[in-house]
């Protein structure tokens, strides 16, 4: 029973990072209509910004979540201006190939810059990198452990999600984004600056990935190869939720986080399988119910 609760807790805490990464990607796919295979590379960049700011400048990663978000927002706008913009109205295959090329480029650039060191983790660990032990029935052996850092990250992620939904619902840029998503021609007729909306939406999209990256650098060791896996996981979650279903992304992230955690715990040699299972789920969802599992 304790193991089961521990599995659920770990899965839920992990899902916060999936939520903001995936909502970011969902904005790129849904609003800008860019199928961005380089999304995870921006997460990787965010992770390294968080790491470097902490190691060199001593800035707490929790603050870097905002800083990295802002830096990568501008990086995203530049990327959009010099490349993505030009393939917006070309066949899908061009978008896939271009963003895949950007992914290869960024990830190998990071690999060259990182040099021989295979992975990086914060040293010394921030003060909140410890675990609470909670005893359920007063027996010390049967407790569950909650990582404080993971808990904080989950709360911050939820805060970002709520803030984002607020922006989408109530602000001018948020309303423009929703209008463009529904009908970009109609939106431009009623005076929405579509070009500018695309630019900002793409910036927000990758900034969310970068924030998730900073969160990751607190709790796991990071490396130049980490991005692509997250691109795929984010696509997996989008497909599970159904394209264009932002709220569904939250449920799908939660489901995927818990499944991953369960496979890692219950299946022998589990951690090796858990990524594979993740992708197996994408295949199954695509085959059985390609419109997504969650109601819009």
């Amino acid at each position, binding site marked *: 029973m304790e193991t089961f609760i521990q599995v659920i807790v770990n899965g839920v805490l992990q899902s916060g990072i999936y939520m903001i990464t995936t909502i970011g990607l969902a904005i790129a796919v849904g609003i800008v209509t860019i199928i961005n295979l380089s999304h995870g590379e921006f997460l990787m960049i965010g992770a390294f910004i968080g790491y470097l700011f902490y190691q060199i400048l001593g800035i707490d990663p929790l603050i870097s979540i905002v800083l990295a978000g802002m830096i990568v927002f501008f990086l995203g706008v530049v990327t959009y201006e010099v*490349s993505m913009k030009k393939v917006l109205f070309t066949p899908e295959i061009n978008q*896939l190939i271009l963003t*895949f090329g950007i992914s290869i480029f960024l990830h190998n*650039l990071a690999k060259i810059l990182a040099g021989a060191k295979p992975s990086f983790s914060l040293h010394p660990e921030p003060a909140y990198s410890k675990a609470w032990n909670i005893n359920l029935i007063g027996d010390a052996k049967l407790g569950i452990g909650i990582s404080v850092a993971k808990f904080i990250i989950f709360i911050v992620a939820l805060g970002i999600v709520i803030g984002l939904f607020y922006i989408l619902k109530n602000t001018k840029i948020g309303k423009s984004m929703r209008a463009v998503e529904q009908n970009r021609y109609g939106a431009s007729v009623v005076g929405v600056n579509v070009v500018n909306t695309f630019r900002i939406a793409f910036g927000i999209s990758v900034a969310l990935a970068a924030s998730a990256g900073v969160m990751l650098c607190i709790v796991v060791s990071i490396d130049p190869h980490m991005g692509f896996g997250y691109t795929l996981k984010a*696509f997996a979650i989008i*497909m599970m939720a159904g394209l264009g279903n932002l709220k569904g992304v939250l449920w799908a992230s939660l489901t995927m986080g818990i499944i991953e955690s369960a496979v890692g715990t219950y299946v022998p040699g589990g951690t090796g399988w858990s990524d594979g299972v993740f992708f197996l789920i994408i295949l199954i969802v*695509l085959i059985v119910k390609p419109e997504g599992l969650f109601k819009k």
Partner: protein
Amino acid sequence: MKIETKKQTEKIFMIGGGALILLFPLLASGLQGTSYFLTIGKHIFLYATFALAWDMLARTGQVSFAHPAFFGLGAYFSAILFKKYAVMGLIPSMIVSLILCMAIAFALGIVTLRLKGLYFAIATLAFTLVMQTVATQLDGVTNGTAGITLPVILGQNDYAIYYFFVIFMGAIIFLSEYVQRSKYHYSFTAIRSNEEVAKVVGIDIVKDKVLIFTVSSGIAALLGMFYAYTSNFIDPASTFNLEIGTMGLAIAVLGGLYSTIGPIIGGFILVVLQEVLSNIVDTGYMLVYGLVIILVILFLPKGVVGLWNHIAEKKKSS
């Protein structure tokens, strides 16, 4: 006139390139390090053929990331049957492996190719990663990361291996040209430009896509086997390798998508470039692949072949 120039260009390439390919071993035998040059040749033909197979599917507008999976599956099915359990000879194991791979491709195609291109791309990417995980984790059958050591075919003769890959590439070039001249060329182009219109004019979209996906994946599987039996050793990292898929994609894009000659030219340029670069830098030469993909898609969407045709046309009209 456009068609004439194109034909002329192709003729020049075919005759000149063909002669160079066939005579190269004779020229190289005078040089020091002959086997090094012949191995580069083998790599060029391997990757060019891989890219050509990938391009044949791309002609329908589908980006497949499953080709590395079939490359790996082809190598592993055959290696397991022939070497690990030694239940059959080399050639039968290759035939069984090819049949298995094409059956898997057929099944995967049936379920994923009725979806939009994005779904197909992600599903094939997922497929490759699942297969990679399975090959690594099922170490009882596959030896896991320890890999399988294999005998080298053709008596380890570099010349024979070189010509073997040349012949296979030639066969796939013929297949690709046959497809280009058949009714499928029109069907694929229509599907790529606009699926709805293609459907209206009576093209069975799913059937045509599944057919070419199965054939194209089968070629990747064969290449995986040839790679396995000419490299002495396979493991999951070297066969179920997304980088192979990246190279195939970059080669086809650089040379020129939707053509036979494009991937072949792209293969020559990129493999030689990679050889040169990997002598200069240790890691990250894949950076160049990324850069090539980005620049070509943005500035030269028809690739080197398109550029060549463009220049040739300008010359003629002036």
